[in-house]
């Protein structure tokens, strides 16, 4: 049993403390926008914000995440439903192809822009290490700059 605060709501989940946060989010809380890609914190498809920091949710346990503010892709938009500026930039630049990695990509970028509102290409190269097999990187880079200048 653990209390997880996800997208502003505290939810009691009946899982072992060593369960990866990813699986608690997907299976126990039922938010499926956060994706499983590798399970070893390499691909970034499961990226969420934990206390505002982008983290790979397959690599942290429910026990570690309890009591912290967790934001998933479903909680990125504003309370009024307006898309986050990163999501807006993604739509404007038509970034996703298959889309499976994009939740994690968007969460990583949203965290980057909080830290560096006007990232350089080098900042992007260093901060964004998510894998995209369709190869959307060219549009991802364009959209990051679009969001930064929005």
């Amino acid at each position, binding site marked *: 049993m653990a209390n997880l605060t996800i997208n502003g709501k505290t939810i009691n989940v009946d899982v072992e403390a060593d369960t990866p946060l990813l699986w608690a989010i997907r299976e126990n809380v039922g938010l*499926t926008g956060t*994706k499983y890609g*590798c399970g070893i914190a390499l691909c970034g498809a499961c990226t969420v914000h934990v206390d505002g920091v982008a983290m790979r949710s397959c690599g942290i346990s429910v026990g570690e995440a309890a009591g912290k503010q967790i934001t998933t892709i479903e909680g*990125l*938009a504003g309370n009024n439903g307006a898309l986050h500026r990163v999501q807006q930039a993604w*739509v404007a630049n*038509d970034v996703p*192809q298959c889309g499976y990695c994009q939740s994690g990509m968007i969460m990583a970028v949203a965290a980057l822009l909080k830290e560096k509102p006007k990232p350089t290409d080098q900042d992007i190269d260093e901060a964004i290490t998510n894998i995209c097999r369709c190869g959307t990187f060219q549009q*991802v880079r364009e959209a990051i700059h679009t969001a930064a200048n929005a």
Partner: protein
Amino acid sequence: MNKHVMPTLNRRAFVIGTAAVGAGLSLGLDLPFGGPAVVRAADGSPEVNAWVVIRPDDTVVIRIARSEMGQGSLTGLAQLVAEELECDWSKVITEYPTPGQSVARKRAWGDFSTGGSRGIRSSQDYVRKGGATARVMLVQAAANEWKVPASECTAANSVITHTPSGKTTTYGKVVEAAAKLEPPADVKLKDPKDWKIAGKPLKRLDTVEKTTGAMIYGVDVKLPGMLNAAIKDCPVFGGKLKSFDEARIAGMKGVKKVVRVGDSAVAVVADTWWHAKTALDALPIVWDEGENAKVSSESIAKWLTEGLDNAQPAYIGNQNGDAKAAIAGAARKIEAVYNYPYQNHVTMEPMNATALYTSDKCEVWCGTQNGEAAFAAVLEASGLPAEKCEVHKHILGGGFGRRGMTDYVRQAVAIAKQMPGTPVKLLWSREEDMVQGKYHPVTQCKLTGAFDADNNLAALHVRLSGQSILFSVRPAALENGKDPVAFQGLSPSGDAAIGYSVPNLLVEHSMRNPHVPPGFWRGVNVNHNAIYLECFMDELAHSVGQDPVEFRRKLMSKHPKHLAVLNAVAEKIGWGKPAPQGVYRGIAQVMGYGSYVAGAAEISVTDGSKIKVHRIVASTDPGYVVNPAQVERQIAGSFVYGLSALFYGGCTVKDGKIEQTNFDSYNSMRIAEMPKVECVMVPSGGFWGGVGEPTIGVAAPAVLNAYFAATGKRIRSVPLRDQNITFA
């Protein structure tokens, strides 16, 4: 608002509808364009025909039979239908018909298969006719209502206008009447130069859900009472499951059942997938690995190398003149041996399917590149007839050829059959996905070129040795044992024709099929054949001190479309002009999937082992471009897929098993390694080529040829990680 909607056809409505239509369904090669009895969608809106449903509020629902896996053909096909329909694009939504519905309607939507870059090129004609036929019927319905000749009416933007009187109506207002009309026997399609919706860089229809987390992929399916399964198949292909010690995991949390799946796999079914996987990892399993456990990459390589010997039997894929004699008699010749490894597709979404089996119904929810093949797999695995089976297609988290196979669908049904009435979602771990792939085939190639006294290429012998995909996947497609697809990019004619004329040419294939199961891996045989031919062309040019582009041009006069894309790339990248300091160029061209493509790379190399790819220029002639923004994305993405494979890929075999198990041992490019990709589209019209795959073929040889220009070192083996070469 454009929204991708999952299938919502009302089964009872269409069964009644199709029964009433009767003979109408046999029109048009089982691709009906309407009829006197109205077929209704689940919400009651009438079909004008199988492709077009219009709601009273003027929403246009376009049915898409091919699968969307990122390549954008969901949007492209909708553009083609909408173009002929003359509808308001802002009111278009799409929907997948199900394979079960298609079978019940005598394949009303034709082929569902989405591979070979054929999603658009092989269905463009009939989907456009679907749109055009619907438009004619809607206009006729308005004309009937107004009691005027249809020839006095025009349609645009979902509005029908009677030109002499200025009267107007909308599609939503006349659709009920239109749906009752006989479809026209023949319709004239627009000249693509008059396109207003097709041919334009319109936004994709599926983007918003892919940025909010709302898109439901197969892995996200939730059904009431659903359980979750994790699976392990024998890691040695061809091996069997001997035993497992179920008692050891019996008390583990959430575990419901441990089941055999076929004769080679075991699955744990639990309340959550995490519980299922945790228990499966703890389950002692004994495999009967069999003879294949003796196979290694080394033993495979040795067997393939033997096939390079001209004394060994081989199938001939292309020949003119007498290459062997010309080479034997030539004063000057060069020879090189190349190889290309196994590759895993590594879709970001691992294989998965959800199945619900009861004694009289079997339903599956999954991502698939071929709804009909998945449907056939459900029939076979469930033992139930077609009318009791259904497949609900979901958007794919990557396909790349892997989801054209149905192994994971069969497994899901086999598990669900052992738990009747309970829906079970089977999800492969990444590790399972890596070791149970359908791999890009392994090949080697010996190339020999001979020159005449004036340093013109007099003969070329390309001898391939290695695995045939068709032999394993589609043996009926072999031609007297020969795999014609093995010669992609090297064929005498057709949609993957060689772009060079050589006086004496011989292309042959010594087929050798190791136990590792092959599959169609985005780009398929074009990938290695383009490396072999295009790197060797570079070798030939340099061996006689000629510019690689000039050398190629001399051999391409009879191949103007191949030449046009090569020239387009050479011009845009500045071939023949100085490159920036420390930057070197390489170039390649190939034809595949009916399209002509070329690519050029600008790279710099540090310490001989760190490659920075600064810039790519790529050109494509696919005949027609349906959505240039999506074609650009396919081209740019092709370099990520092709260069990931070149730098980081390669699956190796030890003790009969694949050694790479996750992204730590099978890496993939990141944004920092992504070069700028500039596209030059030169659609010449008159044919329809594919765009999802061909460009991958030029990615690796363009970079390898640039590496030679930079270092003087020729690389003939993939992946580069085996030679300690990586991205800077």
